[in-house]
């Protein structure tokens, strides 16, 4: 049985704070930081937005694009590292507000920035095993960065949702295969009651992000006998703008294959939403027959690689709100307003 993406939705809050605004408060050189990270502004949640509302908006769009009856959603998984509650699932509120009903498989997922792609694997596996005919896999975050920390320039808000289903439904892209590459690597963590994450600075690079993205992607290419030139587009997790560009080059992908996915340049790192938002932006302009490769990364650490083949049905889908529409629709905040939005001041 073929499985594939029936529809997708994305959401980015309207608020932005610039690298210049943050750097000005901490006496840093904004130009140098923006050049190093490839990030000149980031998205910030509204005062009444959180992972649940972002996940809902992205999912609502995914369902509305194909006028999909929410009662036919058999599984729903929300991946995030900023679930509003420590105990009480985000997924049930998202499902209730969508009108999913009560007969669905669900759980909240957490695996740093790859919880969204973990959800895509779980829903795909439910559909493959015929326990579900369709399911929503959602990655959404309102990422936290300690004031003054390097993460403050990139930790952003946004999310995307993918409605995955069996071949009883029309697919806009088939899911060809997926793999994971995982190890116990302490590059980034947030303690049980901690408000902000800690990171191991340069250790987050080579032994963490690069090793796992490289590991998952090369394993996937070898397993399926693919080479980088077999793909029209590629998406890598985007903690900043530099890392995906570096890993793409190292793996033999070109800037052209990568460029459509780089939402990070405009909104920063949306954690569990990052690679999924990249995939949504690629699908916004994909053509029938395009081959797409995606590798996520979650600290701790692991990477998931997927590949997709776009079908003719994509053309019917490219009419609604695009990721670029959200990127361009923005209100700038001062640092003080930003601090209020992310709860640094109450």
């Amino acid at each position, binding site marked *: 049985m073929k499985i594939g993406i029936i529809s997708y939705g994305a959401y980015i809050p309207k608020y932005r704070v610039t690298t210049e605004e943050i750097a000005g408060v901490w006496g840093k050189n904004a130009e140098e930081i923006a050049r190093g990270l490839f990030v000149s502004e980031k998205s910030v949640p509204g*005062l009444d*937005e*959180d992972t649940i*509302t972002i996940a*809902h908006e992205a999912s609502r769009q995914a369902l509305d694009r194909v006028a999909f009856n929410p009662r036919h959603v058999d599984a729903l998984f929300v991946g995030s590292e900023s679930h509003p509650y420590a105990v009480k699932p985000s997924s049930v509120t998202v499902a209730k*507000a969508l*009108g999913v009903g009560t007969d669905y498989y669900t759980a909240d997922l957490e695996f740093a920035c790859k919880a969204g792609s973990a959800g895509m694997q779980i829903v795909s596996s439910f559909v493959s095993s015929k326990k579900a005919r369709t399911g929503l896999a959602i990655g959404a975050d309102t990422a936290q960065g300690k004031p003054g920390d390097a993460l403050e320039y990139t930790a952003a808000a946004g999310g995307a949702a993918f409605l995955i289903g069996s071949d009883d439904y029309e697919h806009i892209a088939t899911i060809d295969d997926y793999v994971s590459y995982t190890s116990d690597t302490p590059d980034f963590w947030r303690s049980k009651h901690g408000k902000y994450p800690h990171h191991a600075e340069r250790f987050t690079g080579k032994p963490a992000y690069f090793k796992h993205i490289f590991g998952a992607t090369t394993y996937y290419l070898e397993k399926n006998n693919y080479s980088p030139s077999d793909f029209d587009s590629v998406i890598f997790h985007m903690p900043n703008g530099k890392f995906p560009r570096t890993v793409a080059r190292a793996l033999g992908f070109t800037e052209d294959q990568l460029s459509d996915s780089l939402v990070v340049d405009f909104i920063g790192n949306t954690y569990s939403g990052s690679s999924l938002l990249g995939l949504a932006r690629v699908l916004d302009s994909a053509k029938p027959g395009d081959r797409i490769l995606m590798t996520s990364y979650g600290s701790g650490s692991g990477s998931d690689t997927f590949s997709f083949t776009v079908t003719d049905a994509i053309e019917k889908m490219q009419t609604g709100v695009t990721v670029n*529409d959200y990127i361009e629709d923005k209100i700038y905040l001062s640092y003080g307003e930003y601090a*209020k939005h992310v709860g640094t001041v*109450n």
Partner: protein
Amino acid sequence: MKKSVVAEWRRYEDRYRLMGSVCLLCKENFFPRVTHCVRCGSSDVRDRLFLREGEIYSFSKIHVSPEQFQKQVPYYVALIKLDNGPVISSQIVDVGSEKLFVGMRVYAVFRKVSGTGEQALTYGIKFRLTKK
């Protein structure tokens, strides 16, 4: 004021999804849901899911708010005429430099309404300006 989580839970269907009522006798729409028609008294009422779009019927900019919304001032509250439903009151969110006017198109979004610290969070429908 302490809110009852159970009282909130009873209204999820209305608040999360814009579920109201329609009187099958006189066809009047209601939001939130009712057990009897307020207009003709009939008990022959059914649930009705209203469309998530409408237009501004009237609006006000709030500068002095109840305590729980103080962080959000100034913000807009509006009466909204739903496309297939009654006039309801709600907050208009994410307003930047746009000037609001009567008749302006809006659509429903799902947002956090209240709850901080150790409190249970409440969510519900608010409205956003429709992009031209």
